[in-house]
C-alpha cells in the first residue's frame, strides 16, 4: 500500500478501514539465501537494501523481541557526518546522502529534519582539532562551517556567554546534519523490506549458530532451525553474545548510554548542539521535548538503565551551557546498550567462519549510520566484498595497527 496525503484523506473519509498491517507476520521458512540476525535499524536497513538494491528476495530478519525495540528506538535521533578520519568520513557522508533521500526511497516519512548541528569549542586546542575535522569533511565532499563566538551568539543567543566557566570560542557547524524520527526509521525500513518480500520474524531469538567444518549453515532459534547460505549479524548491544556462539571474542565491550527527554515545550532550539566543555548534547523533537544525553555510564553492562551520577553530570553540562533550560523538567530517562569498540569505530566485515558476517561496534554512533550500514552490509552479504566506503572497518585492524580512533583515547572502550 502506497502512502500519501491523498491516501490519508481517503482513509479518513472511509473510517480508516483500509489501512493494512505495515508488515506481515510470517512463519520462518526452512531455508533462506540470507538470514539477518537482529530486527533493529541496521538489520532492517540491511534487509531493505538487500531486497531493493541488491535483488535478494529470499531473505529473513530474525528478531528476538519486537522490531525496533533496541537502540534504534532508544537513541537521541541525531544524524550527521562530521567525522575527521579517512576511515570514517566517506562512510558517514554516504549515509548522510542516503538520509537525504530516505523518505522517498521508503515512501515513509521518517521526519528527517536537516536542522544542522553545532559542535562548540572552548579552547584553542579544540578549535585546531575542529578545524582539522572540518577540513577533512569538506575534502571528503561533506559540508562544514567554522563559526567564531560572535557568530555562534547570533544563532544561539540563549547560550551562556556571560557567566561561563569555559567560555564558548566558536563552533563547527554542519548544516545538513539534523534529526530523524527514530522509530519511523525502523518501521519504514521494515515496511519496505516486507513489501520486497523479506520475512520479518519477530519474537524469534537466535539460540545458536550451526557451524560445520568452519562454515555457518544457519541459525538455531526459538522457532527452530533456520538454514541459510549466509548469516549476517547486526545485533548492537548483543554482539559479543551472538558472536560468542561462533566461539569468537570481539574487540567490543557493552556499555549503557543514558538518554533523556524533557516535557513538551514550544520551539526553543533551532539545531542540534553539543557542549565542548562537558558531557551534554541536545536537540528538540517535533513534539517539543528536549532530547538530550551525555557520556556513557562507563562500566560494562547489559542492563538498559543507568545511574544518577551520569544523570547529574549531563544536567550539570546542560545548565552550564544553556541555563535557560533550568526550569524545563526532565520527563523520562532510559538506557541503551552500546557496542563500545576498541577504537570507537565500527566493524563491517567477514569473520573467520565462512558464511558468517558481522556488523557491529557502533558505539553510540549507530543511528546516523543506519542507512549506510544497511547498504554496505547488504553489499558485503550480496557480493562477498566490502563496499568501497567500509574497507577500513575490518575486524583485524587492531592486530595490524590500523585503528580508526577519532578521539585518540586508545584501547579503552568507555572513553570513546
Amino acid at each position, binding site marked *: 500500500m502506497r*502512502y500519501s*496525503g491523498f491516501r*490519508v484523506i481517503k*482513509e479518513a473519509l472511509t473510517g480508516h478501514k483500509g*489501512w493494512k*498491517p505495515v508488515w506481515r507476520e510470517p512463519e520462518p521458512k526452512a531455508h533462506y539465501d540470507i538470514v539477518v540476525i537482529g530486527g533493529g535499524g541496521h538489520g532492517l536497513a540491511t534487509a531493505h537494501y538487500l531486497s531493493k538494491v541488491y535483488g535478494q528476495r529470499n531473505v529473513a530478519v530474525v528478531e528476538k*523481541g519486537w522490531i525496533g*525495540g533496541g537502540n534504534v*528506538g532508544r537513541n537521541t535521533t541525531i544524524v550527521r557526518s562530521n567525522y575527521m578520519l579517512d576511515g570514517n568520513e566517506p562512510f558517514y557522508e554516504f549515509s548522510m546522502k542516503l538520509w537525504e*533521500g530516505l*523518505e*522517498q526511497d521508503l*515512501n*515513509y*516519512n521518517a521526519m528527517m529534519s536537516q536542522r544542522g548541528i553545532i559542535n562548540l569549542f*572552548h579552547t584553542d586546542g579544540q*578549535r*585546531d*582539532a575542529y578545524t582539522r575535522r572540518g*577540513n577533512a569533511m*569538506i*575534502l571528503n565532499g561533506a559540508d562544514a562551517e*567554522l563559526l567564531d563566538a560572535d557568530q555562534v551568539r547570533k544563532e544561539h543567543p540563549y547560550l*551562556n556567554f556571560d557567566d*561561563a*566557566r*569555559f*567560555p564558548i570560542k566558536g563552533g563547527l557547524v554542519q548544516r545538513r546534519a539534523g534529526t530523524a524520527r527514530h*522509530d519511523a526509521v525502523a518501521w*519504514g525500513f521494515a515496511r519496505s523490506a516486507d513489501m520486497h518480500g523479506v520475512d520479518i520474524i519477530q519474537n524469534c531469538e537466535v539460540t545458536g549458530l550451526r557451524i560445520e567444518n568452519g562454515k555457518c549453515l544457519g541459525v538455531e532459534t526459538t522457532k527452530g532451525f533456520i538454514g541459510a547460505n549466509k548469516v549476517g549479524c547486526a545485533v548492537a548491544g548483543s554482539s559479543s553474545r551472538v558472536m560468542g556462539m561462533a566461539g569468537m571474542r570481539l574487540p567490543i565491550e557493552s556499555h549503557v548510554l543514558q538518554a533523556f527527554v524533557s*516535557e*513538551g*515545550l*514550544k*520551539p526553543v532550539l533551532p539545531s542540534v548542539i553539543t557542549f565542548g566543555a562537558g558531557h551534554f548534547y541536545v536537540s528538540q523533537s*517535533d513534539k*517539543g521535548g528536549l532530547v538530550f544525553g551525555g557520556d556513557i555510564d562507563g562500566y560494562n553492562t547489559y*542492563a538498559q538503565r543507568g*545511574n*544518577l551520577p551520569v544523570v*547529574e553530570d549531563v544536567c*550539570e553540562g*546542560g545548565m552550564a551551557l544553556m*541555563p*535557560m*533550560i*533550568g*526550569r*524545563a*523538567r*526532565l*520527563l*523520562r530517562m532510559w538506557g541503551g546498550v552500546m557496542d563500545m569498540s576498541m577504537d570507537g569505530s565500527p566493524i563491517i566485515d567477514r569473520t573467520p567462519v565462512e558464511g558468517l558476517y558481522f556488523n557491529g561496534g557502533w558505539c553510540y554512533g549507530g543511528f546516523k549510520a543506519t542507512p549506510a550500514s544497511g547498504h554496505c552490509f547488504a553489499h558485503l552479504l550480496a557480493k562477498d566484498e566490502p563496499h568501497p566506503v567500509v574497507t577500513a572497518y575490518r575486524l583485524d585492524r587492531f592486530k*595490524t*595497527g*590500523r585503528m580508526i580512533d577519532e578521539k*585518540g*583515547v*586508545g*584501547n579503552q572502550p568507555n572513553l570513546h
Partner: protein
Amino acid sequence: MTQTNRLDGGQIDRNTSLSFRFDGRSYTAHPGDTLASALLANDVRLIGRSFKYHRPRGLLTAGSEEPNGMVELRTGARKEPNTRATTTEMFDGLEAYSQNRWPSLKFDALAVNDMFSNFLSAGFYYKTFMWPAAFWEKIYEPIIRRAAGLGSLSMEADPDEYDKGFRHCDLLIIGAGPSGLMAALTAGRAGADVILADEDFTLGGRLNSETIAVGDRSASDWAAQVVAELSSMPNVRLMPRTTVIGAFDHGIYGAVERTGDHLATLPAGKPRQILWRIYTQKTLLCAGATERPIAFENNDRPGVMMASALRTYANRYAVTASQRVAIFTNNDDGHRTATDLHAKGVKIAAVVDVREDAPSSYDYEVLKGAQVINTKGRHGLSFAEISLPDGSTRTLDCGALGVSGGWNPNVHLTCHQRGRPVWNEALAAFVPGGELPVGMSVAGAATGIMSTCGALQSGAEGAAKALNLTGALPDLPEAEDAPVIQTPFWYVQGCKRAWVDQQNDVTVKDVKLSYQEGFRSVEHLKRYTTLGMATDQGKTSNITGLAIMAEVAGKSIPEVGTTIFRPPYTPVPIATFAGRMKGQEFHPTRLTPSHYWAKDRGAVFVEVGNWLRAQWFPLPGETHWRQSVDREVRQTRASVGVCDCTTLGKIDVQGTDAAEFLNRIYANGFAKLAVGKTRYGLMLREDGMVMDDGTAARLAEDHFVVTTTTANAVSVYRHMEFVRQCLCPDMDVQLISTTEGWAQYAVAGPNARKLLQKIVDPEFDISNEAFPFMACGNVTVCGGLRARLFRISFSGELAYEIAVPSRYGDALMRRLMAEGEEFDVVPYGTEALGVMRVEKGHAAGNELNGTTTALNLGLGKMVSKKKDSIGSVLSEREALVEPDGLRLVGIKPLLAEDKITAGGHLMKADGPVDAAHDQGYVTSAVYSPILNSNIGLGLVKNGSERLGEKMRLVSPLTSLTVEVELVSAHFVDPEGERLRA
C-alpha cells in the same frame, strides 16, 4: 462573586485569604489550597488545551498523576511551563497562565485541528508530508512544531539556586499514607533510622481525603497525631514535599525536596529544590494507588473528573467542582464520593453504575446497569447522556461528572530496575512483581491492599519484616475494612471518540487503529500512538490502552504485555539535577601560586583544564595580543623571562625499586640515571601510542620527582598506580602527587643564571660547571627557604625551573621580578610558552593527540628494545612502522607573512586537492617573532624524508591555501647550544 464552589470544613485556613491570578484575572484562596482547588473554588473549569486537537481541558485529578490541569506558573525568568495545578501549593500573589492556546484559552485558533481530527489519526504524519522533499523543513515541520509542545520557556537563565545532598538511613519509607505512617511508627518506635518521604505538603495521603474514622478519631486527625509523634523522634526524619523519583542500584534513591516552590520568594541563599541521594539498607514503598478512568464519548470535557478527586477536593479542600454532580462508576468507590458530596450539601444528579446489582441509596438516585454515552457543554460539562439497561437514554443535568473505574496500585518504583509488575485477576490490576530493587518491599494500596485497615496492618508488618523486628508491633487502630472487588470496565462500546490519553489526545480508536496496522506490542502501541508518553507518563491511561489492545487482540492483558515505568516518578527540573554546578561553579577553578600577582599585573587568563593560567601580560599601549606575546618571546630569548609552570603534574616516586619502576612506565631507560640528574621521559600507552612526556629528576638513589603535562597529570598518576598495584605488586615503590605543594617557575633566557644567582643562596654553586644542563638538586633561596632547582628547558634557552613551597610562590615571583629588573626580566604566559616550544620543535598537546607513536613524533629511537616497558610491543604493529607513516616536520610558508593554520591539511605542490591526496595536517601554528615568520608543526606522510619539499597547505574551512615548505621541526638552535650555555 468569589469561591462560589467553596464548602464547609476541610483542611484550609479560612482566617487567612490569599490572592492569586490566573490568565490575568484575580481570585482568592486560602492557605492549604492548591492552585487546582482554588480554581475550582472560584468555578474556573477551563484550564488548558490538549496537545494535538487543542480541545478544552480542565482538571481530571487532585494529584501528581494529573494529565490536563497544567499551567505556566510564575513570570519572567522564573516561568515554569507545564506545571500541574493539582500539586501547586497556593501562596499569596501566585500568578499562572494557561498554555498551548492562541490567541486565548477560550478562543484557540488551533482548535480547528479538532475538526480535522479524523485526518490526524494516530501516526498519520508518517504517511504524508513527503513531497516535495524540501517542503518538510521549510513548511510542514515548522507548522507542526509551532502547534506541538505545551508551555514555553522564558529563554532567560534560571535565577534560582538548587542544592544536592546525601542522606543515609536504615529504612526509607516512600509515601505517608496509612501504610507509610504506620510503617514509620513501627520502625521509629523500634529505634531505627527512618526517612519518611511524601510528595504532598501535608502528610497522610488518602487519610486527608476521606471521611472515614481511624481509631477513635477522624482519619486526618489520626494522621496528624502520628506525624506529631514521628516528628518528636530523633531517629525519624520526615520529608514532606519530597518526591522519591527513582530507585537506582544498590539501595540508592533519588529524591527531590521542593523547599521553595510554596513560597512567593526564596530567602537569600536558600535553594528552590534539593536533590537528595538517599542511601538505605531497606525501602518500603507505600505509594498508594491511582484511580483509573472509564473511556466514553467526549470524556475529556472539563468537569469530567476522577470520582476520588472530587472527594479529595470536597473533604480536604472544602471545594466542589460544581453544585450539581453526577457519578459514573463500576465499583463501590464511586458511591463513596456521592455520599460524601451529598453530606456536604452538593446535589447528586445521579450515580450511573455499570453494575446491574449496584447498591442503592436513599439520598440520591442510582442508575444501575447504566452507562454514560456522551457529554455536552461548551468549554465545560453541562449534560451527560446516559443509556439505561432498557436501551432508552436519559440526559443528566450536571456540571461535574465523577468517574471511577477502580484503582491501579502505584508500582512505578518497583519497575525502575528489572522489575515487571504482574497481573492480579481478583483486582484486575497490575501489582508489584518479583524482581524488586534490592532491599525494597511494598505495602498498602501499592501492593493491592486497598482497605484502610489492611493498609495500616501491611505498613506495620512491612516495616517489621524489613528491619527484622521482633517483639510486639504498635497496636493497630480500628479502620474500615471494606472488601474491594474490581470488575474491569474499560470503555463504553460504540463511541466515536473516547479519550484514553487525554494530554496526548489518544482515543480508543487510535489504539484499535494501531492494532489494525500491526503495531501490537505495548512498545509499538506507545511509540505509534504516543499513548502514555505525555508529561503524566500515562499514570491514568497506560492500563486502559493495554486493556483495549488486549480486547482487539483477543488476548489477556498480561499476554499483551506489561507497561514498565522509568525514572523519574514525576518530572524534575533539569536545574535540580545540576545543583550548584553551573555558571562559574560548573567545575572547580584551580589557581596557580602566582595567580594573585599575575592579576595585579593585568594578565589575561586562559582555562587549561580546571586551571586558570596567565596567557599573556599586556603592557599599556599594547592593543593586540600578538604585540604582548611577541615582546615576551623576544625579551625572553634576548635576556630572561619567567613563567609559572606549577600546573605541570609532579609525582614523587620513592622506594628501592623506583628506578626499575620508571624503566617500566617510560619507553626510554632510567636505571642508570645518576643522582642529581634529570632525564626527559617518553611514556607510551600499552597500545603503543604516546601517552605523555615529561622529566624525571633523581634526587636520591631511591627518590625521583616525575613531571607530567598539565593535561595528563591525573591520568598519568592513575596509570602509574595501575602498573604499581596491578602489574608489579611486589615492587618497592611509593607514589604521591606533589603538584600543588610546590610553586614552580621556569626562568629562561641568556640571563637566567645571572638572575637566579641573586635568588639562590650563595652556598649553592649553580655555575655551568657545577650545575650543568639537566642537573637537579635541593637548594635554599632568599636566605634559607628550602627549594628545588632543575636545569631543564622547554623554550630551548638556557633555562631552569625553580620550586618553592606554594605559600611562598607569590613572594618568590615578586622577588624574581624585582631582582630581574636589571636584566629587563619579562613574565611570559602560555602563548609565548607555546611559541617558543614550536620554535624549538617540542611536541605538545596538539601533537600528543593520542593517535601518534614515538616514531610519528621523530622519537622512535627513544623506545628501548632492551627492556620491558609499557607499549613497546604493540608499538611495532605493521601499520605503525610503515615507512610512509606520518612524521613530525616543521612547516614554513614561502612568504613569511602567509598564515599557517593549525588543522589545515597538506597537499602536494600540484595535483588534486581532496581527501584521497591528503599528505598530512598541521598540528600547531604560531608566529615566530624570532624568525619573523609564521611557522608550524605538522604530521606528514614520510615527512622526515621530504624536508625541503614544497607543498600546499589547504584549509577550505577557512578559505585558505598557502604554499609552504617542509623543514626541520627545530627552527631555533637545532644544535642545542643555548640550553647548554
